[in-house]
């Protein structure tokens, strides 16, 4: 019995320790000596996922550049609406509570899934960009995007392309490919890259449009091939894979992740954070984790990030209206 209580007490301590970090701080001291206390970094997705891994690598490295601990807290649920909703609606813009945003905050309010949008956040620094890629099984009948288009035109809708959920980034990337090549594909939603990969390898699904990082391991293993990446220039990691643009199709779309806080942050604090994060992104410890997970590093400072995100939002909203 006694052991049970000791275990119970230990578990309670552990949990309360986790909970403490979740209470964001308000009433910061003088702005000039920011930060004066630990920073909470909210992940709107569960532990072990892509955003989580990236945020933990970021937190571990950025601590040294800010001189304060950064505590990562997972608040997943409702496709990000829970964690981001809290930042957008119920967090002091004092710089002590931050999050990692991705394109979803720009367009999911269009579908009524979020009750917040890009304007509810203060963007700070972009850290990552992963373009979409069109992946097929290694023994698929198409070796080039041209061959793929020819078959799609011969029998509209016959080719099935997997994505991560209706109206989400990869579904819209498929729409972008359809629009640029003037073809019709069948969109099939999966739970995520893993289950779509299984369907492509198992032969029920013809192709998948996901981020390059998510199919990279299969390409390395010789199980899949890529017909194109949706970036302006070829990727350093995949010099043999052509872009859609160089094949004559204007498809530039993907996902990206950056650090942001609630709307209305003090520009001085934003500048302090941005400087620290830009320096942080140069560190090997951060770069190693990014490379091991096939995440592309793309750093943009505050103003550039804002303009970049607004362009991306316009593209996504446009594609969304078209697909409806």
């Amino acid at each position, binding site marked *: 019995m006694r052991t049970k209580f000791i275990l119970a007490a230990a*578990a309670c301590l552990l949990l309360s320790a986790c909970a403490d970090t979740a209470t964001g701080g308000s009433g910061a001291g003088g702005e000039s000596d920011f930060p004066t206390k630990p920073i909470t970094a909210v992940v709107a997705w569960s532990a072990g996922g892509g955003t989580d891994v990236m945020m933990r690598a970021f937190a571990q490295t950025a601590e040294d550049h800010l001189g304060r601990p950064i505590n990562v807290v997972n608040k997943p649920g409702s496709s990000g609406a829970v964690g981001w909703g809290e930042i957008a609606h119920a967090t002091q813009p004092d710089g002590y509570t931050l999050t990692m945003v991705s394109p979803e905050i720009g367009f999911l309010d269009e579908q009524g899934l979020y009750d917040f949008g890009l304007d509810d956040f203060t963007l700070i620094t972009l850290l990552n960009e992963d373009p979409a890629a069109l992946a097929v099984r290694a023994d698929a009948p198409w070796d080039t995007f041209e061959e793929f288009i020819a078959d799609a035109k011969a029998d509209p809708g016959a080719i099935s392309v997997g994505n991560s959920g209706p109206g989400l980034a990869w579904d819209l990337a498929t729409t972008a490919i359809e629009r640029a090549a003037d073809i019709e594909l069948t969109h099939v939603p*999966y739970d995520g890259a*893993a289950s779509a990969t299984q369907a492509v390898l198992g032969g*029920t699904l013809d192709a998948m449009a996901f981020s390059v990082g998510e199919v990279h391991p299969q390409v390395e293993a010789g199980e899949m091939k890529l017909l194109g990446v949706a970036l302006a220039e070829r990727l350093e990691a995949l010099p043999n894979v052509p872009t859609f643009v160089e094949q004559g199709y204007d498809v530039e779309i993907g996902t990206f992740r950056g650090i942001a806080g609630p709307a209305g942050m003090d520009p001085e604090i934003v500048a302090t954070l941005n400087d620290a994060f830009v320096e942080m992104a140069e560190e090997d410890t951060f770069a190693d984790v990014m490379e091991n997970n096939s995440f592309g590093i793309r750093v943009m400072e505050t103003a550039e990030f804002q303009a970049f995100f607004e362009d991306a939002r316009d593209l996504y909203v446009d594609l969304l209206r078209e697909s409806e």
Partner: protein
Amino acid sequence: MEIFSSLLGGFGTLFSSPHLIAALAGAVVAGMVVGALPGLTATMAMALFLPFTFLMEPATGLAVLMGVFAGGIAGGSIPAILLNVPGTPASAATLLDGYPMTRKGRAGEALSMAMFASAVGGLVSALLMSVLAPVIARFALNFQAPEFFVLAIYGLTIIAAVAGKSLLKGYIAGLIGLVVGMVGLDPIAGQLRLTFGSQALYGGISLIPVLIGVFGITQALVMVRESSGVTERPRISGRTLVSADDLRSSSGTLVRGSLIGSGIGAIPGTGTDIGAFLSYSEARRRPKGRIPFGEGNPQGVAASESANNAVVGGSMIPTFTLGIPGEAGTAVLLGGLLIHGLMPGPDLFTGSQSSLVYTIFASFIVANVMILLLGTLAARLFVHVVRVPNQVLVPVILLFCMVGSYAINNRIADVSVTIVFGILGYVMVTHEFPVSPLVLGLILGPMAETNFRRAMTITHGDWTIFFTRPASLVFWALIVLSLVYVWRSARRRRVQKPAESEDGPQAVRPT
């Protein structure tokens, strides 16, 4: 055999470094503790430990993750057996016979049977994984949307096995589960269903808060009712270890459970809970021993616990060979592999990193032996939980249920779900409705719907795809067999009125 020499090499690495063994033992114990707390699952334990493993040597870090995973699944059986509250979804089938054993004073036997079965399941799956991983992985790829749909339908026939006295009430509970599974964003068309405008329900109602509610809260409420009446408290018999006779008669169940678990684990997109329920229903079909299933048959514990730990080993097959996680816990493990620079794929077994892979396998095998040793030892202590009076136990259970459901996602809405389903569970149980079918409906309903619609999207509405693929046909045959069995046993039950069991009417409890 080259594989065995590689595996021996793995054991060599493991045993030549004491800190690795110590880390593994610590991980197994930590996993068991977290798994034993309702609401804190093995997956969550792994996610908690993942950041720490980044700082360790790759072999140590991955061994720790394996230990936590295996320990967590085994630990979930402890509260299932002692309190009728599953520590993790994997043990939801364990309580069906485990708790009645406790009520009959056989808690020690049930716990040691659970630990033994967990170890057997883990070891069998580890051997299959070491020897046949690439072959099984290729075969498991045949499992696609049509197969998942038919497997889910087969799974729903298990409701008959866990329905208890009334088949009709079991099916009603199953239908409630199916409806609960429909709440939220529809996975194919992206439309909102049954959310009544509440944003908290957009993401749907997830399994774990419901599980904690219908088992944990309901059980606590039942105990409150019990303590106001005159009920005998369960005694503890002299026996703390399972008898050799019970082990011998369970050997077939253990082997079948281990194979079913390994197979289910190898199919990405299934899980420990499905493996345990399938194995339990399979064991029920071959009744053995004097005690009927559902009333404290050690075979029920053996079936469920051997299968759920076998899923752990099985789920590593697609993770290592294809980079596709077989289960939620292995998704975290995959994150760990990638962080340590291991690229999953067939090359993992032959390339420069292969010695590390075999060290991981060796640590999984040793972790399962540790479960047997440490778990049986710990069982002697844990057994005394049944002596704790309800006045103390009920608040503790309620506290853990609340903390556990909040801890899943740090979300207060999950606590509300737990409370609502706790009250629903109490109403169901006091009206002799079983709650396991509700849980099964919630696990399998979304799996059936999503995969049915996925398959129909790909074929543009041609339903023959469900009958033209070999693996689907096997499951259709199993469905027919299962339904014939249900029909025959239902008829038999009608012919001969069921005799009350020797202990008189069963106590009310969530099953």
